């Protein structure tokens, strides 16, 4: 389900901004921000599989925390650059479509984005930095919400990876048990022979 980007209203808001008829805390400013943010968010939404995959890779420890933060920021920056170009192109904006569940996606992606972005911010020398485990838990919390909101997309790869991992574990365990049983059997045979 999608809807059109309201170009007419966006143009009005831009004119208001140029005339300086609002302050930062006005609803008008927030409305303009919402319009601008929706474009960037839709671009991210269009490649949400990449975001999911990235988060999953981090959560399954395939990717290091710093790699994850860097990669997440890079994808976001790329989306932001694309959005910046589209926001200048009214012809493209006229036919631009927005997903209905964009807000949910925006909220969840923003949570992780804020975490990644603010992770390195330093306040003063006395404060305790956020630990990696705390960061992991916070990302995981957002991811669980992601899974609920977008069940079709979520963690197909992760399930598959988990399944392989579990199978491998079971296989290793079975082989180990087999070897152990054989050893016990051999020992018993020896004991019987000795007697």
């Amino acid at each position, binding site marked *: 389900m999608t809807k059109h980007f309201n170009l007419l209203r966006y143009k009005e808001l831009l004119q208001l*901004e140029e005339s*300086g008829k609002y*302050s*930062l*805390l006005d609803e008008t400013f*927030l409305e303009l*921000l*919402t319009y*601008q*943010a929706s474009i*960037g*968010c839709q671009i991210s939404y269009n490649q949400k599989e990449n975001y999911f995959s990235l988060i999953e890779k981090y959560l399954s420890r395939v990717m290091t925390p*710093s790699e994850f933060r*860097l990669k997440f920021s890079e994808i*976001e920056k790329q989306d*932001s650059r694309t*959005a*910046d170009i589209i*926001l200048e192109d009214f012809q493209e904006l006229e036919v631009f479509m927005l997903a209905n569940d964009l807000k949910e996606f*925006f909220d969840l992606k*923003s949570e992780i*984005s*804020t*975490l990644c*972005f*603010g992770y*390195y*911010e*330093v*306040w*003063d*020398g*006395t*404060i*305790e*930095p*956020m630990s990696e485990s*705390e960061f992991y838990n*916070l990302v995981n919390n957002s991811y669980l919400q992601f899974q609920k909101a977008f069940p079709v997309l979520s963690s197909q790869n992760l399930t598959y990876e988990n399944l392989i991992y579990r199978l491998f574990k079971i296989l290793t365990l079975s082989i180990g048990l087999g070897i152990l049983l054989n050893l016990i059997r051999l020992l018993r045979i020896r004991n019987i022979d000795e007697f």
Partner: protein
Amino acid sequence: MRICGGDGFVTGGFPSYGHDSHEGVTDRGADRGENLDPKPRLPARTGASGNFKSSSSSSSLQANKIPDPSECNFDPKSWVDDAEDSCQDFEESESSCKLPVPINFEYVKDSNGNPTLLVPNIDSTLTVKGRSLNRVEYDQTASHLYHALEMGIQLPKSFDLEKYKSMPKPEKIKYAKENVTRETIISFQNACAMAISPTFGIKTLPVRGFAGIGKENVGMVIKNIPNSKNRYLSVIRNDGTHISSYPVNPEKLLKIAQDRFWVWKDRNFN
């Protein structure tokens, strides 16, 4: 205290000869009024000729007595010498005050001789009473170099950003000072100061906000970036210390606005 102009020249009244201390500078109104007294002050004469210092007439003046004309030194040659000494003193103070890169703000030097930029506070209606200057400090800026590139400041290729990011603040500062030129840090300081300072024709808005898990009160400045939908977001502590400036896209700014301008809310700030 010595306040220097953005172009490296001494401004804000007269150079204070013989006062090399750079500490104790605050942006409190009363302190500023005292330090920036626009009245001309006589420099403490300790020139090579030493005429004034050693003359008995100066002791007469100190004792509020009319000096004996015989005690006065009317040798015009010595006057010329004094004038030259004074000029040399001025030039020396001027050159010691000059920065390696041009900046747009007045500044004072910290205990290490690095500049602290003094930026007029635009948050005059909402801020703590009496504060009209924000301070962009050298060390604080040196600990935020991961935003330098976003603010248009190039870092050397040898600078290991990932290593730097993982360091605690004191090590960040040390690493920055060892691996980045002073010019680069000052340029970044200037860029941060520009982000919290109004520019004609560019929308710059102050707002009150919060930072950290403890929800500390902070000032924020949001400034439009020309030819972009992104804006600079700056966070300033209530004592006027600039914490950080970085560009945010509309999504990030919207999120911050939705959070009622509460940034870094998951961080373990005290």
